């Protein structure tokens, strides 16, 4: 139970952190570059703690690094949303908005209800993800309520990411859907954007069935440890 939950939370954070790092030096402005790198760094910190907790609960001597660098693609349990390519800036913001809003609802709940090792991390990270959610929501409004082009791109980005949102609300997390919908809709209304049309959700990440993108991420993320096992600085 603890192993599975900590692994999926850690993998979400690790993979999205890696995606955000791809923006480093490429974001539209310096401030946005710093923001995306900072959010990525927070996520990397979450990954370190969650995967550390997963390894400890598993009790087979695997630490956070071993889990991050030595597992195969089908052993990762992140949701499909976080492994999706960055696309343009609007799509990156859409992905962050949908995901951080979900984390911001989930973590305060886990802080109360989860096993102590997970609760402590969730309680700590809840403060950070509230910041991420606010940052992303502000950009959704700015782009949605901006020029006709920024509006179109924001709508496209949301529509593209929407098919991966059902997976966020499977099993234990289904209870967060109504509140998440209301948060998302409030921001979209403010941005002058319509809620994307319902689509058939794509799932599988939580069971290790990933889109083709994860393997490419791992080939960059794991390269050094695969070629030079146990290399240190």
């Amino acid at each position, binding site marked *: 139970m603890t192993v599975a939950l900590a692994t999926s939370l850690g993998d979400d954070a690790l993979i999205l952190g890696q995606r955000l790092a791809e923006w480093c030096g490429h974001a539209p402005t310096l401030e946005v570059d*710093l*923001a995306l790198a900072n959010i990525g760094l927070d996520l990397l910190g*979450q990954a370190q703690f969650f995967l550390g907790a997963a390894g400890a609960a598993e009790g087979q001597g695997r630490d956070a690094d071993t889990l991050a660098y030595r597992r195969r693609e089908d052993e990762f349990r992140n949701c499909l949303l976080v492994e999706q390519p960055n696309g343009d800036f609007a799509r990156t913001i859409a992905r962050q908005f949908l995901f951080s809003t979900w984390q911001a609802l989930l973590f305060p709940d886990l802080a109360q209800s989860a096993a102590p090792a997970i609760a402590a991390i969730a309680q700590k990270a809840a403060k950070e993800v509230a910041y991420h959610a606010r940052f992303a929501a502000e950009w959704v409004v700015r782009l949605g309520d901006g020029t006709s082009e920024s509006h179109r791109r924001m709508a496209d980005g949301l529509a593209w990411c929407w098919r991966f949102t059902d997976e966020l609300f499977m099993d234990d997390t289904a209870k967060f859907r109504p509140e998440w919908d209301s948060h998302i809709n409030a921001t979209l209304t403010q941005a002058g954007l319509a809620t994307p049309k319902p689509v058939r959700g794509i799932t599988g990440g939580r069971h290790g069935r990933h889109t083709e993108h994860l393997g490419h991420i791992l080939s960059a993320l794991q390269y050094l440890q695969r070629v030079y096992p146990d290399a240190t600085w």
Partner: protein
Amino acid sequence: MALLAHIPDPEIPVISLTDLGIIREIRDGPPPILVITPTYTGCPASIAINASIRMALDGAGLADVQIKTELSPPWTTDWISESGRQALLAYGIAPPEPRAARLARQDEAPATCPQCGSHATAEISRFGSTPCKALWRCLDCAEPFDRFKCI
């Protein structure tokens, strides 16, 4: 504790680790354990902080003391001491608002400009040069400055 009061934060060297409020407690041994807590989960300074504590302990003949990181209860900027806040301001970083005051408002209160003392200030970016700081500017003297985020 006195030993730790002389270890500077690696990224904001005017403030010590005790002023920053990340030293939780010292548990008697054996082995004695020094409990610390990170500011942000992904703060890259955490490694440097651990290393500088280790060096200070070893240098004082306290090699048997173990360092342990505990997350709960999570660090809050309210744990930054008054002398730490003064040091931040003098260094050019606006100290964080008290958390209770921050939670009572929808938005962050204007910061005090560390250069000229004006309260006419505005946020430029929610994320600044390190995870713990946001970027602000003064509307009177026009200088940009860092502000410690309230968490």
